[in-house]
């Protein structure tokens, strides 16, 4: 069934690499793993990571993709690549040569993005695989430890997963321990001549809003034993890996699509590859009615930058932006109008979804702003640690931006946090304009 060999992959790869280098791309070496469809499903369920700690939710993800794929409702991704050094990518053995060519060219684009985009600057790609490996081993040992066992481990991981995105949204900044922060503030107060720190209370915990709920719990929670604390840290550290990806989904995909298109153009593919390639490419960048396809949007935006400002400008944009700043800078009225973007919401009183704004002269900025509010991590509510009171009551607050929480979900997560914290927990939010305490 397959129409390729490793030797052919190798030879196409050399051509791809040469062309990509000529475009000025600079990427990590890529290790391609050739796997079958079941392994592809597995890899997908573990978000592509070759090692990951065990948890039933990944089993659930597997079953879900398996069901979807078998129902024909979805194709498997042709590409999946890990931000490691070297980059790890997967080629599905069942795929045909032209798909492999597209995948490889696409992966070079991603790897180049990982290596150059500012959001990934402090992600230590060399350490990602060893880190996940160590975490996986630790969790495995706990599961096998008769005094701990899988139930206990799951209790902690389940709870942590409920707040795994409650971490700072700017990647690569190291969190300071409370003691270190206190020291810094003490120095600042000493040096303070303006008087702005006169009323500063050094005994407060935390000294400033802590957006890293898991790290805070792991640092200050007094009801966790050592392995529980370590587990919380493991989930917390793993979460950071996904932050830069979530912040650049549109750009990253758009860039990879743009690059695979440009690279493949230079390869002068024979017709037997070229025709299906074009078809597949069109599928990838297909606009999906009622949704925003990040491949499509990102590609169209980069395409436009190239038209208006040249490829150099694209290279620069892929370096300095994230999705939020990218959309703000380059998603203009014309583009919104071309894509026919619109915003919509659920109307409770009428029990239906209806269009709020369309991309005409008056509406496009609102549509753009709504889009920015929902890309990547912006679709996840921000919760921060406001205070730990003397009796160890943990006070959390939702940074309300006009959007109310889904209370059914919030209540469950609140229970998880209570479980982890062990002492009293308070959570404040705003519901329909009024302050709400859990």
């Amino acid at each position, binding site marked *: *069934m397959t129409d390729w060999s490793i030797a052919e992959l*190798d030879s196409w*790869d050399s051509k791809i690499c040469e062309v990509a280098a000529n475009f000025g791309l600079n990427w990590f*070496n*890529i290790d*391609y793993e*050739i796997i079958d469809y079941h*392994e592809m499903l597995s890899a997908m*369920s573990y978000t592509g990571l070759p090692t990951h700690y*065990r*948890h*039933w939710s990944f*089993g659930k993800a*597997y079953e879900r993709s398996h069901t979807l*794929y*078998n*129902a*024909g*409702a*979805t*194709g498997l991704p042709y590409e999946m690549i890990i931000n490691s050094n070297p980059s790890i990518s997967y*080629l599905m*053995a069942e795929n045909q040569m032209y798909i492999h060519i597209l995948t*490889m060219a696409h992966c070079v684009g991603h790897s180049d993005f990982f290596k150059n985009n500012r959001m990934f600057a402090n992600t230590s790609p060399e350490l990602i695989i060893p880190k996940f490996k160590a975490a996986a081993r630790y969790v495995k040992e706990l599961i096998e430890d008769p005094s701990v066992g899988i139930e206990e481990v*799951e209790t902690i991981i389940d709870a942590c*997963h*409920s707040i795994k*995105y409650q971490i700072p949204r700017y990647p690569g900044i190291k969190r300071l321990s409370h003691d270190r922060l206190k020291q810094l503030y003490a120095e600042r107060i000493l040096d303070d001549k303006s008087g702005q720190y006169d009323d500063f209370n050094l005994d407060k915990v935390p000294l400033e809003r802590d957006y890293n709920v898991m790290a805070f719990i792991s640092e200050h929670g007094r009801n966790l034993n050592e392995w529980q604390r370590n587990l919380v840290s493991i989930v917390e550290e793993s979460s950071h890996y996904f932050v830069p990806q979530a912040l650049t989904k549109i750009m990253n995909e758009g860039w990879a699509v743009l690059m695979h298109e440009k690279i493949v153009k230079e390869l002068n593919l024979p017709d037997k590859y070229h025709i299906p390639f074009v078809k597949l490419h069109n*599928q990838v960048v297909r*606009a999906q*009615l009622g*949704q*925003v396809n*990040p491949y499509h*949007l990102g590609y169209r935006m980069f395409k436009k930058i190239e038209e208006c400002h040249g490829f150099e400008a694209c290279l620069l944009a892929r370096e300095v932006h994230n999705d939020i700043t990218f959309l703000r800078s380059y998603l203009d009225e014309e583009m919104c109008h071309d*894509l*026919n973007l*619109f*915003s919509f*919401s*659920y*109307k*409770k009183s009428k029990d*239906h979804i*209806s*269009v709020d*704004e*369309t991309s005409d002269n008056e509406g496009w900025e609102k549509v753009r702003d*709504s*889009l920015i509010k*929902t890309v*990547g991590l912006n*679709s996840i*509510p921000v919760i921060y640690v406001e205070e730990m009171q003397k009796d160890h009551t943990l006070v959390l607050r939702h940074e309300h931006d*006009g*959007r*109310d*929480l*889904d209370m059914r*979900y919030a209540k469950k997560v609140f229970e998880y946090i209570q479980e982890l914290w062990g002492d009293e927990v308070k959570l404040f939010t705003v519901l329909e304009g009024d302050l709400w305490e859990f």
Partner: protein
Amino acid sequence: MSTFREHKSIVDRSAADRVRHKKKIEKAIKESIKDVIADESIIGQNGKKKIRIPVKGIKEYRFVYGNNEKNQRVGAAGKHNIRRGQKINQKRVQKGHSAGPGNEDGEEKYDVEITLEELAEYLFADLELPELEKKRFRYLSADGLRQKGYRLEGIRPRLSKKETLKRKIRRKKKAIAAGIRDSDSNERFPFHKDDLKYHYMKPKPKKSTAAVVFFLMDVSGSMTTEKKYIARSYFFLLYQFLRHKYDKIEVVFVSHTVHAKRVTEDEFFKRISVGGTMMSSALETEIEVISKEYHPDSWNIYTFYAGDGENWADDNEKTINLLNALKDNNQMVVYAEINERRTHPEEEGAVLDWTNPSFVAWENENPESIWTLCVPLVDNRFKRVLLTKAAQIWPVFKKIFGAKE
């Protein structure tokens, strides 16, 4: 330069997590089943009827925004005309939404749909009919295998071409519907490994044990709606259990007031009558049916009686004698009293053990009741149980069949 490595893994890395996930689902189903039992809709329904069981505990909760006017999302309309205030078909927006962090939640549906038969399977998994002695077998069946449904794994000769093709066609149609494939495309849509379906061959037992089950019920006026409901649930479970466990099983329904009547299953569960209560009439009918149709040498006989314990006093002695006679040729006789006025011993903190004859906390109140009079009969072949509400059916059930908690 990149490197290529053919990865031949022997280990299925997600296997353990999948098993874990499955266990969670099954556990959740089992937990929900108790609620479903108390739900009236299962009674008297066809075994193929689908039941939605809400599965709790496997949903992954996170902080998410509520679905309301403030939470605006954005979509592309392509070439379609779109205007403010236009209503949108909900399905179109949600279909195939991307799986990025944050937007994957909220729409997860974790109601599992199972058939009544499957429900029974979960329910009775850990129950066994007791004392099914090896007797002469009425049913002799041909040796060997017989086809029973399909499986995803099997050997080549048992490949079901029809089922396999059906799966492929289904996958293709879905692919077209999802927009992954053009409907007019001539491109091959190859079979996939996962399309393959095989006939499942089940070894046919050479001999199967035969059992007949008598369901006796008091349908007189003193049976209130609530009592009837409990009785129906209780019988329904017994019935499903037996149907599930034994292919060759016959069920006889006898309802009675002062007279007994052999009825169909449907009539049994639906029939409402008025009149007094003479339990012996039902027992006599049973004995008559047994003597004509089910010789105890060939059949394992089970008798399950349900009533509210109100019997004409004149009839008590006769009833006890008949129960005693039945006990001799039955594998088991269970007398169930459905009486919501009585306090359930469990609620008083007492040990739930009806088989213990010395448990007399409340039976002294009426020394002339069947409940009290049948005490001397109680042993492992004769059981009496009390049901005061639907929620007790399950523990009572376990008790009767001696399953371990």
